[in-house]
């Protein structure tokens, strides 16, 4: 066995979890970048996980199809939820999305009982999902997503989102339909969270109703807040650190919850823009151009 395969045997799954968490970080980045605190992304992840897993198991659809349908379902539910709640302002939006994961849980637990089908496995959850997630498929999706983000920020829509975060009413007086753009950010976030859910279900081979609770929502939030929400790469950095550090440092694994909480408080207070500051990134690019 060479060094790489040894490394992979030990850390392969950690790397894949890190990649999935990067997807989740990006999913909440969309809303935070627009200045919205939505805590619904864990719920969207749950939708993606359940729908894709049920498809693979019960309908035997190919993995990419399961994944895509799962993500689209999350996006659709996101749109339906977003339509009413995005009319609400800051605190009220956080409140309205806070319980969404709970709704997903209740639905998952009771779905089979009320529908008379055996699709989602009730309180036991779904197991025996084939392991179809591969590092390559994850990297591929992440790569596409990064290109999309780069393009988004150079586009009219991306500028509108940035403007809304900074001053919603000024943005509106410049012809930006604030509500529609918020909806766009919300639905994009739901879609990506749904993708992450599908990957995760086909990696851990299990989906349970309790995986998408408030604490899952907080983990996702921590990825983006630690990395910073002014540039999309922040979500990647934050997710990577918060996935890999606990593996490297045993004490962090035991106190993962405390560490996440402390990070949220400290970063928000002392590093409000997170670890990745776009000014530095721009600085790097400028230096390259100058050369």
């Amino acid at each position: 066995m060479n060094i790489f395969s040894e490394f992979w045997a030990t850390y392969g799954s950690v790397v894949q979890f890190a990649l999935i968490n990067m997807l989740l970080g990006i999913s909440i980045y969309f809303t935070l970048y627009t200045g919205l605190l939505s805590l619904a992304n864990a719920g969207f992840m749950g939708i993606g996980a359940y729908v894709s897993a049920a498809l693979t198991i019960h309908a035997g659809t190919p993995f990419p199809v399961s994944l895509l349908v799962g993500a689209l379902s999350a996006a659709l539910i996101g749109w339906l939820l977003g339509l009413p709640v995005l009319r609400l302002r800051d605190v009220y939006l956080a409140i309205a999305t806070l319980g969404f994961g709970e709704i997903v849980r209740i639905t998952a637990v009771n779905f089979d009982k009320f529908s008379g089908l055996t699709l989602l496995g009730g309180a036991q959850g779904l197991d025996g999902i084939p392991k179809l997630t591969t590092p390559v498929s994850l990297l591929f999706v992440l790569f596409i997503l990064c290109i999309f983000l780069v393009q988004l920020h150079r586009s009219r829509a991306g500028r509108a989102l940035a403007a809304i975060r900074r001053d919603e009413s000024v943005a509106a007086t410049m012809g930006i339909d604030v509500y529609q753009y918020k909806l766009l950010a919300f639905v994009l976030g739901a879609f990506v969270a749904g993708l992450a859910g599908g990957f995760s279900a086909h990696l851990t081979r299990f989906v349970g109703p309790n995986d998408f609770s408030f604490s899952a929502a907080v983990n996702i939030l921590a990825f983006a807040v630690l990395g910073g929400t002014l540039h999309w790469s922040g979500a990647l950095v934050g997710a990577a650190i918060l996935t890999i550090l606990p593996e490297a440092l045993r004490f962090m694994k035991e106190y993962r919850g405390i560490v996440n909480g402390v990070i949220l408080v400290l970063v928000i207070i002392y590093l409000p823009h997170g670890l990745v500051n776009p000014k530095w990134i721009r600085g790097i690019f400028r230096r390259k151009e100058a050369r």
Partner: protein
Amino acid sequence: MFWQQVVNAIWLGAVYSLFALGYTLVFGVLGILNLAHPSLYMWGAFIGLVCVTTLHLPIWLALPIAMLGSGLLGVLLDRIAFKPLRARNAPHLATLISSIGASIVLINVAQGIFSAQVSRFPFDIFPVRVLKFGSVSVTLLQLTILGISMLIMIFLRWLIMGTRQGQAMRAVAHNAVTAARLGVPVDRIIMQTFFIAGALAGAAGVLLGLAFNSISPFMGGPMNLKGLTVIVLGGLGNIEGAVVGGFILAFSEVMSVAYLSSDLRDAVSFILLLIILLVRPNGLLGRASVKRA
């Protein structure tokens, strides 16, 4: 059957209100939605439990000690998680995230100390007496909980409406900058507000811990959604609204369990919450009244 449900809803509603009062008070005075409030509730329950089990104190002493403890914890929370943000006038989003972080820390520390298992008060902590009024039965415990909740709420009302502290609190709620200029010690008032809010949460924690005899680090989670529903029902920052909201939620829950399905109980508060947010985001009673009063 129906009247039995009404009685159940009344004492439950009183505790919900107690819990929500602190939640809404902090919002009314500071404009902060303190998502760590449910963790103070959980800590109150644990402090009460430790008083009773480890220190062998009677329950009537454990309750005020728990209130004191969770009140002080509330003050600490403000100093660490909110004050620095206030100082630099950070956006709402930052405060919310900070309070989420703080709540996670509080939950995990409790889990480390008390384990994730469900803890219980000793069975003989409170005399088991059932009083019968016709077909309706009430336990002495439920009556006591109702009585204590009511007393605390009346005291709070007097504090806010009838004392200089309360006057100062209302001034800060209205406009902290102006209040400071008028010589109100804003920082002290904020500390007091957090203390009171924490103490109220702690009281609710001990009382509900007694009623359901189940205390765990995660007990704040479901309560959070209930508390938010209550204060949104009443209008964020509205003191009377929180009391009214507490009873409305308790009634909705009790009745939906009795007449629909117990699977729905957990969904009731979220559905109620969404409806109110969408139909009347300022709550049933209208605008924030800590300010108006």
